[in-house]
């Protein structure tokens, strides 16, 4: 196990270095310097040269990359010339908000999707299954921005009972307590995620119900409630572990579309705004952190699988 962990950490570092090089070169090949964007159309050459010198864009790309990595290693994510703040402080201000929005939505989605999927599997082809399947397909095929717009129109404008935008408070505790403004973005993310997760759960549960050990349990006269709770749920939930692990990047990196739609100052919205301003330090840091979360999510999912299913051994 420890050998596996070491090997996995080593490959993760290599993957992250590769991603950082790729992202750095990609950004710099498309836009060697953001000076024109940052300074405006009328910026003269002297101003552009000064900007490039100040931010190091006049140096060879590889040298810039090494400087950037050196900063990262020392905990310096860079300085955002578009926001006039360090990238670390920009992330720090927004991270908790993004984790809250994505996390609470994920918790709700899991709490709804797992029982719903089981119900649909057990009552396959019943009216309830068909209704839930139809609803899931509608939500699954619906872009989150479209669902969000509908919810805003209905619950914030036509019947103004909820806020049209997410909480703007700087205090995460105020945000958490502000159900009036947070309900719609949470609902948007939850519904989309439930549609996704419940389909997996239903399919997985159907597979498990067809397994021999379920038949044996039933043949032995075990009550159906115990068959489902003791033998089916845990096994059927295994694919969900992987799915939730892959959801981790979104959990931490924020939801770009939902945050933008609801004017929610999280990491996703920061990334969206930074794209328009070509704010390299923010874009690079966000992408790298996203990559870290993807690697981490997969890693956590693998570990969680071994815990959930003793048959799986990591080597």
């Amino acid at each position, binding site marked *: 196990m420890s050998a596996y962990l070491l090997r996995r950490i080593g490959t993760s570092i290599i993957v992250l270095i590769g991603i950082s090089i790729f992202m750095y070169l990609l950004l710099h090949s*498309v*836009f060697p*310097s953001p000076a*024109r*964007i*940052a*300074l*405006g*159309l*009328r*910026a*003269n*050459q*002297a*101003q*552009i040269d*000064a*900007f490039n010198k*100040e931010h190091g864009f006049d140096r060879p790309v590889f040298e810039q990359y090494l400087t950037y990595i050196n900063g990262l290693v020392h905990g310096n994510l860079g300085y955002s*010339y*578009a*926001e*006039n*703040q360090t990238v670390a*402080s920009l992330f720090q*201000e*927004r991270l908790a908000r993004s984790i809250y929005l994505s996390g609470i939505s994920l918790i709700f989605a899991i709490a709804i999707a797992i029982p719903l999927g089981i119900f649909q599997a057990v009552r396959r082809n019943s009216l309830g299954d068909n209704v839930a399947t139809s609803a899931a397909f509608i939500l699954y095929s619906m872009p989150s921005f479209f669902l969000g*717009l509908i919810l*805003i129109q209905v619950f*914030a*404008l036509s019947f*103004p009972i909820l806020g*049209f*935008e997410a909480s*703007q408070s*700087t205090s995460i505790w105020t945000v958490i307590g502000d159900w009036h403004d947070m309900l719609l973005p949470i609902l948007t993310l939850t519904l989309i995620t439930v549609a996704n997760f419940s389909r997996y759960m239903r399919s997985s549960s159907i597979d498990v119900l067809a397994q021999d050990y379920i038949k044996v349990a039933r043949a032995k006269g075990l009550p159906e409630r115990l068959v489902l709770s003791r033998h089916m749920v845990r096994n059927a939930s295994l694919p969900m572990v992987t799915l939730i692990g892959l959801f981790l990047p979104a959990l931490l990196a924020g939801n770009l579309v939902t945050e*933008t*739609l*609801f*004017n929610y*100052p999280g990491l996703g*919205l920061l990334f*969206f*705004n930074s794209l*328009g*301003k*070509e704010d390299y330090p923010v874009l690079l840091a966000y992408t790298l952190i996203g990559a870290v979360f993807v690697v981490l999510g997969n890693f956590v999912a693998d570990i969680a699988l071994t815990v959930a299913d003793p048959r799986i051994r990591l080597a």
Partner: protein
Amino acid sequence: MTRFGTKYIGGLALAVAGITALAACSSSNSSSSTPTNTNTTPGVTTEPGSIGGIPAAGTASGTAGNITYGYLAGNAPNWILPIIPAADNSVYNSFVFGWQLWRPTWFTWNGSSPAVNDSMSPANAPTSSNGGKTFTMTFKNWKWSDGQPVGAADMAFTLDIIKAALKESPANWANYVPGYFPDTLTSMSTPDASTLVLNMAKPVNPTWLEEDIIDIGMMPAHAWAKASANGPTLDYTVPANAKKIWDFLNAQSKSVNTYATNPLWQVVYGPYKLTAYNATTGSFTMSPNTAYSGPHANPMSTFTGVPFTSDAAQFNAIKSGSVDVAAIPAADNPQIPALKGEGYNYYGLPAWGDYFAAFNFKDTTGDFNNIASQLYFRQAMQHLEDQPGQIKAFLNGYGDPLSGPIGAYPQSPFLPANGKTVLYPFSISTATDLLKAHGWTINANGTDVCSSAGTGANQCGSGIPAGTKLAFNLIYNAVSPITQEVEDLASNAKAAGINITLSASNFNFMIQNYIDPASPANINKWAMEDFGGESFSTYPTSFGLFNTGGSGQIGDYSDPKADALINASISSPNPSAVMDELSYLDTTVPVLWQPLRDHVYAWKTNISATTPKAFENLTQYDPTPEFWYVTK
């Protein structure tokens, strides 16, 4: 050159001291083909070219409130020092944010008129003497919030710190162009506390200097001339001290989290003091400066800026009634008439500036450089631009035709006579006649061919060999309504036998790759491009944009006569010089002019102002909340 620097407002970018990009966005309603506002309700203020109306001032039943102001998408203020670096130069940092704290020496706009509003300016109208080399400023008896007088020393301090900032980096002041102010400033003197005399090495147009170059907020010499928070007051005329002061103030301005708590920023002479600032969202609250010396409502309301990072969120805020004053996103213009029923007034005019597609005068592909250099070709292209049709079809009617660097609306005192009408109106037949008359064989829906090479009056022109085809590319910023406009142009051009190949791109990529002086390697990759447009200073010289070698050049337009006229605009004391420049550029079509788009603002019906100008200037991103009050 302009007042504007670059920041984005949806697809539209504005700047505060140079030209900027006006991309995407549009508008709808009446001001295009029927530029006279038809609103005749008694007491309602309208202007030619406007839409909506400003109701007469309401009864001020003594109510000040907290008036919220919504920004267009994603441009939270992030700079507070009145000396604004090029990288932080935006209408939000200056007009919306900084100017509430430190008013510029001469306040522009005057309502929706692109001119100085004298009563709102802390300085009197300047005088020019010594053949334009001496510029004298006198200051009114305004007070800083700590009771000190605002005067010549403050302006001299500001200019000395600007010089120190520029010594460190030319990017430290957005208005700076090497070789011009303050490089040309040879000396300053303060004959008395309220008079500052600037002596220049060469003549400068006083209006250009007044409205464009040193139209900046002043800094308090008595409070900011120090190198640390608790340090002693320094002699800022000593360059070494000025550098220390700049370094200190610059660092403080970068500390965005301390904007509302730093004592430096509490010394103001504008109508407001900053009381809260959220560095994450960019929202802020300003309370009235009780020592403010300029005109204002009494009592003044609190002013709260609320940024919306998406157009949808902003319009939802309007529809839900949760913001008092906000711009209408262009995509929502069709819903403007309904706002009346939802408790809002609205008013719109084109934002000051222009929209155009640029010609590349250096692109040798297919001899396009030689083709674009022909005036008849550019005139023919302008005849193919169906501005009335585009305004109706793509802007929902909310726009005005444009035929030169500045439009007819809002009305500028510098608008030349030939700028009041479209010189080259839409007419495919006129375009083909022009081409035929210059040696081209027309192949409608095919490709025109030069059949008479030469430089004669009825020949194709210099450098265009026989057999040359009228076929070239146009790269455009793929947002609405630019996409629709260039497709319309290409369709009209095809009918005239001009084959335009459209190629979609995006704003950021275009301005980094398809600007000739900045990207010489790509000179032959584009013949025309349309990224949107640019904003102008209220003194509307196109210095920088159309003068040979100008820092804002796009396709390397070069015309000796235009150069001479532009130079006169910035150096001659003659007030009509800039009109001569504009009049000439109207005729020469240096770029393909496209319709202006109305910028529409909505405010709740329970918000009124002591002057309609306080709502008119919203259309130019220039809020003056000190005049607003709540009526019920």
